[in-house]
């Protein structure tokens, strides 16, 4: 009937991807919101690419990059003996790139909302930039973080094209929910497809519902 493995793989992938994205995306968003560098527009465009590119294009290039001779794959070869392509680790790398704009953009927007003036006030009161970031910028950006976490997580859960291209379809390793549904539909097992689909639908709704309610609460307090 319903297999639990794809659900676990999906949740594990989304959680790890979101965590990595917070670690990688926060400095990128911070840099983008503060810099006057002429590279800003280039980096902004690169980060936003997954929004407009067909997932198959992204997946295709990732497949090349992750292969043992590819750019990422060859570096990986020095660290680990298992290849990246068609592995869970490869899937994580793909997801991080694919979901990047959904984390970086809300963070950048909320950092820009906090703005320089308030940070300057903190400086004149003796706070270093790190102190200011930790005690002023982060708490004032918590709604941005909430949105970033939700979108990053939900978008990774809903990922299909990229996973199909680089993850293969290995049960209990890289087989995620969206692919399982696709498999069932292909062999006309509509009942099973329904179970997974309705589950994903309800789950997504709940995540968004909880986020927006919590967001309102944050808004009322400030």
């Amino acid at each position, binding site marked *: 009937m319903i297999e639990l493995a794809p659900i676990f793989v999906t949740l594990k992938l989304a959680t790890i991807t979101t965590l990595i994205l917070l670690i990688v995306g926060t400095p990128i968003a911070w840099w983008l919101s503060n810099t006057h560098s002429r590279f800003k527009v280039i980096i902004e465009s690169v980060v936003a690419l997954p929004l407009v590119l067909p997932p198959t294009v992204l997946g295709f290039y990732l497949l090349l990059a992750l292969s043992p001779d590819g750019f990422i794959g060859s570096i990986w070869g020095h660290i680990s003996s298992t290849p990246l392509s068609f592995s869970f680790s490869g899937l994580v790398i793909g997801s991080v790139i694919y979901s990047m704009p959904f984390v970086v953009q809300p963070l950048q927007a909320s950092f820009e909302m906090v703005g320089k*003036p*308030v940070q*300057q*006030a*903190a*400086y*004149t*009161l*003796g*706070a*270093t930039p790190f*102190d200011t970031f930790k005690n*002023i910028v982060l*708490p*004032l950006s918590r709604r941005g973080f909430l949105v970033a976490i939700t979108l990053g997580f939900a978008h990774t859960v809903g990922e299909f094209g990229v996973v199909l291209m680089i993850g293969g379809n290995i049960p209990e390793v890289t087989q995620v929910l969206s692919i399982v549904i696709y498999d069932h539909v292909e062999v006309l097992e509509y009942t099973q497809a329904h179970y997974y689909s309705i589950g994903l639908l309800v789950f997504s709704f709940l995540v968004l519902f909880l986020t927006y309610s919590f967001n309102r609460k944050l808004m009322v307090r*400030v």
Partner: protein
Amino acid sequence: MIRVSYKQQLNNFLLDVDFNLPDKGISVLFGPSGSGKTSVLNLIAGLSESDSLQRASLKINNNVIDDQANKIQLKPWLRNVAYVFQDHRLFSHLSVQENILFGYKRRDSELSPDDLIASFSISKLLEQYPAQLSGGQKQRVALVRALLSNPKLLILDEPLAALDYQSKQQLMPYIEEIHKALNIPIIYVSHDIKEVLRLADYIVVMDKGKIIDEGDIASLCIAQPLLTQQEGASFVLEGVVTKIIAEEKLVQINCGENILITAENMCLEQCVRVLIHARDVSLCLTPPKDSSILNCIAVCIDDVQSDKNGKLRVLAKLGEQTIVALISHRSAKLLNVEKGREMFAQFKATAMIK
């Protein structure tokens, strides 16, 4: 002494200033909007982008803060220059109490938060958040927050500009309180002549990025056109309290001649500055015997100048000091007001004492 010298190319003009300020009291940086006052403050606080800086030197009582020649440029968090902004810039996620202790926790301060909380009347606000406060309350909290960060210099950038008339009147005494609470120099930026005359001990006048005049308030408010040509132009008389008439709420002040001013809480022998509006002074040839105006003193006309508002500014000597009267051309003609003429100057006892 505070030594300030900066040169920086800004977007629309060249900022080039070089001046000294006394190390106590309120020094006002005065000038029209867009004359570069806030840019100077940002340089002093270390908040400016330094890439277009051509000259930088800042010393507060022998502490070198900026010295471009020797590549010294202290970071803003190391300067101990506290800044009160026009737009308060309180931290909206922190309560009033957390806001005012933000700087206090980061620097050793000998000041007691409780004392300042009491003297700025914010004890009832401590648990509230900035969004719940009125404009005047926010600025009071911002002032206390700045003072508790143990500053060596306090700079205030038009802290009253965003407030309505009533809040301004309420906040002004608190600003005057500051140098009683803390013996530090204050730089106050304003383009409002009323604030300047009330608060300033020393004035630096700026226009288009340059210093065009500086000096103590008594001399500048007679000679500097940007101050004299304004609505509310005033002058200052310095003197000593010689008599207190408590039952009538009057004090007698000797500033060459004895004058009477409405005031309370003064003590004998106290040196005071009396601020009088030029439009409140009238001139007459003989002292009237039946006037409600208490002050009538003999003066000698020193100069008659045209005012851009179509009035005449009459400068008259009272001993070493100068009285300014704003009168109409017709009155001047009728009374034959001219240089060297002996006359009487009359004004009400409602001037302001500092």
